[in-house]
């Protein structure tokens, strides 16, 4: 089993619903976020293009954050999802520094926090992650890459995609449809 997510940049409007849905679902304190929106504009008026991406932890197959964690708090869980065990985390911040995607933040309660793909609270109950299920444009696809019939497998077969900073060699599992 390999959980992954795809985000359709052709449909995302950058509304940030994914951000606030994640905050309320996962009780992320106001002022912090586990996912965010990036807008890239190219060209000069009127020859322009915009790419809008909802970004979060890439749940890399080769995660520098897991490798550098001195306590084992950062670890691979079911389906390759990268998680942090708050009780084991000493808040040293090595993982924050190691992440090429800047996906982690220091939680005010003293541990490092990040996207979990809503593994415990939603995915294990058969639900999509909060961001995927709330998105008004339905631009996000989630599922098991080992299952050829999962929404994410289907859309990655059908569409052109890219990952972010592939040269870092982290083997990210967050795909962007382009």
């Amino acid at each position, binding site marked *: 089993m390999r959980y992954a997510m795809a985000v359709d940049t*052709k*449909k995302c*409007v*950058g*509304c*940030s*619903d994914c*951000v*606030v*849905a994640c*905050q*309320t*679902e996962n*009780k992320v304190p*106001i*002022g*912090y*976020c586990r996912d*965010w929106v990036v807008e890239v*504009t190219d*060209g*000069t*008026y*009127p020859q*322009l*293009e*915009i790419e*809008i991406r909802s970004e979060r932890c890439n749940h890399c197959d080769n995660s520098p954050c897991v490798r550098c964690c001195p306590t084992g708090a950062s670890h691979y869980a079911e389906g390759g999802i990268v998680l942090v065990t708050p009780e084991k985390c000493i808040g040293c911040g090595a993982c924050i520094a190691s992440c090429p995607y*800047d*996906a*982690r*933040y220091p939680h005010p309660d003293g541990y490092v926090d990040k996207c979990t793909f809503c593994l415990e609270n939603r995915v294990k109950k058969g639900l999509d992650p909060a961001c995927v*299920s*709330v*998105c*008004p*444009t*339905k*631009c996000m696809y989630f599922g098991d890459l080992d299952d050829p019939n999962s929404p994410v497998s289907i859309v990655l077969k059908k569409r052109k995609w890219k990952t972010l900073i592939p040269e870092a060699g982290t083997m990210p599992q967050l795909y962007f449809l382009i």
Partner: protein
Amino acid sequence: MISHIASICSFLIEINNTVDMTTTRRQFIKLGALSAGSVTLAGSSFNWTTASSLFENQKSVASDRTPTYCEVCFWQCAGWVYKDENGEIQKIIGNDDDPHCNGRFCPRGTGGVGQYSDTDRLKTPMIRTRTDGVDSFREVGWDEALDYIADRMKEISSKYGPECVALFTHGSGGSHFGQMLKAFGSQSVTAPSFAQCRGPREVGFLTTFGDIIYSPERTDIRDTRCLVLIGSHIGENMHNGQIQEMSDAIDKGATIITVDPRFSTAASKSKYWLPIKPSTDMALLLSWMNVLIENGWYDKDYIARYAHGFEELKEHVKKYTPEWAYGITTIDPNIIRRTAKEMFDASPAVIIHPGRHVTWYGDDTQRLRAVAILNALLGSWGRRGGFYNPEKAKVPEFPVPAFPIPKHLPTEAYKGKYKLANEVVSNGICDATIPTPDKNCSYKIWIVNGTNLLAALPDQEQTKRAIEALELLVVVDTMPAEITGFADVILPECSYLERYDMLRKSPHREPNIAIRVPAVSPKYNSMPADWMAKKLAEKLGLGAWFPWKDMEEHLDWQLKEIGSSLEEMKRIGVKKFPRMHDNLYFAPGEDVTFNTNTGKIELYSTDMEAEGFDPMPVYTAHEEPPEGFYRLIYGRAPMHTFSRTANNPNLTDLMDENTLWVNPKVAKIWGLKAGQYVKLKNQDEKTSSFSIKVRITERIRWDSVYMVHGFGHNNKKLSRAYGRGINDTELITRVKVDPVMGGTGMRGNFVTFVFENEKAGKEAES
């Protein structure tokens, strides 16, 4: 990672020393200014047993989720409120059965919990008092506040008649206060959603097709093959169903054509972006008509069968060639032809979208007529992928006595003007409140519910003059919006998550209803609008028009009449009903009679002609910015609604100020740097109160600047919104009124940069 740094504002309790209004009778009161003699609730004679019993039932039915429909915007998506183990609201999630949202709330609805948890909320009723020439607010109990209002209403109406009361409303509270007002003897109930927003499109389509667009819009976007957006920035305006269907249309490969001087999000999703010169849309629309007719690219059978005035239109648009339009719009004639062909190829599954906020230049009804005519030529009205015929669930009203007939109707406030307005014109009521020697209809009392008129109505000075002329201003709101500072009495309304309201029964493909049930009891000393209206009516001797014990009884009666019940609706939240008629679209070749004078689709409008307006739209050139000035264009951000969410803790976390979009060429001329703060001054020498952060971007033309509406609040009690960005309404001092229906055109204002004292607002705090 995005750095979200929470803003910590000093919580100033300020003694009133405002200078700007001291010469007037009514001083603006910053809500911190409570008078020394403020009383607490203990002094109230109100019977609290009655009030709390209203909410006792909730606890007994408390389950893991409570149905509601959202009040953060007018789309009113139905959803479920979930509470955590402490009984606090944790999250709000869309109801899967709701056709408004299909189980997916937008960011504002998801962040709607902030409307409840905001600690800056209005907490208790307050009455204006004056001590030593200084106005302040005195906290009072509910009984005292409502007694005061009832006594003043009786006293003032004994002099001027009950018609001197007007209700300005936006949202669910309107039906409760509207009931009270009509029972009192006034029908002056108005909402800025007409003359400051969608009015021109309703009148434009009404005079063409004999029917309006409604809300949610009857656009069949999910099945369209070509969607044309004119200044409509779906994706930034977060009208949930529209966004969802546009996304479906993108998936199905529909062609999107966006006409906008700004490279909007929608423009970035479009096959064609037409970067039009602002204020010239009419020229483009007329030239599209020219191309469609000259090339025979129109639905000949549909026009022959349903339309009135085709020959006149054909003759009329002959001169409006794409080459003619090029000189006005700056859009390449070949692109005009190519996009017209795209529309025809997709027809009748094509939508020239009527937009929503369309009060731009004062000839807006005519522009929307042009949009309607294009849709008629392409045969999209009543066709799949064009415009469907919506149907509304029929729910009987709780029986009440007939309302008294007022001596004069609200339309007398603007007699002889705006004759084709099909709703009450808010600015007409506002203007009529200012006394003039020749007026026989003037207002002495305003009740304002859920609309911040200082941000909603353009020309703030005119609004202030009207308020100055009032003998009583009652403001009912959840937040200390600017309008509360002018009130005589403030009634704190609880948020939508803490109350019942009337059933939502808006028209859709499938008739449906949605219910709002309180998930929690009202916080502080706030109360629901229905309770306030009923109590006030009883104090006015109008209890007969509120014969129900409470909203539960009211709703249960209505629901049982249609084969449901309150108990059922609490379980399901949304209920759909079969259509009464199988007429979502016209059947092929069907005989259709339209609700117009001719019974046809009026390409040539007999109503317009009868009222002395152009029966077919013509192009009028609008003013252009003077040298060194830029047209002020404003719009929406997906995480905010008007000015009402600017203090919402969840939503300010996403966006806590607006920015000024400036083209890099303009930035270079003025030496502007990205991120610096500037003030703006308009053509009438009006300078903004606060400053705004410059965003240098290629996404805006060099003759315009752009900002999101709803920021720049100047009430310090709004701790997250105070001084953040600029309030565009402040700079909209020149209003182009649409003579057809009274719409206030707001896009004819021009601004330049001011570099004095620009350190105001957010930057000054750091």
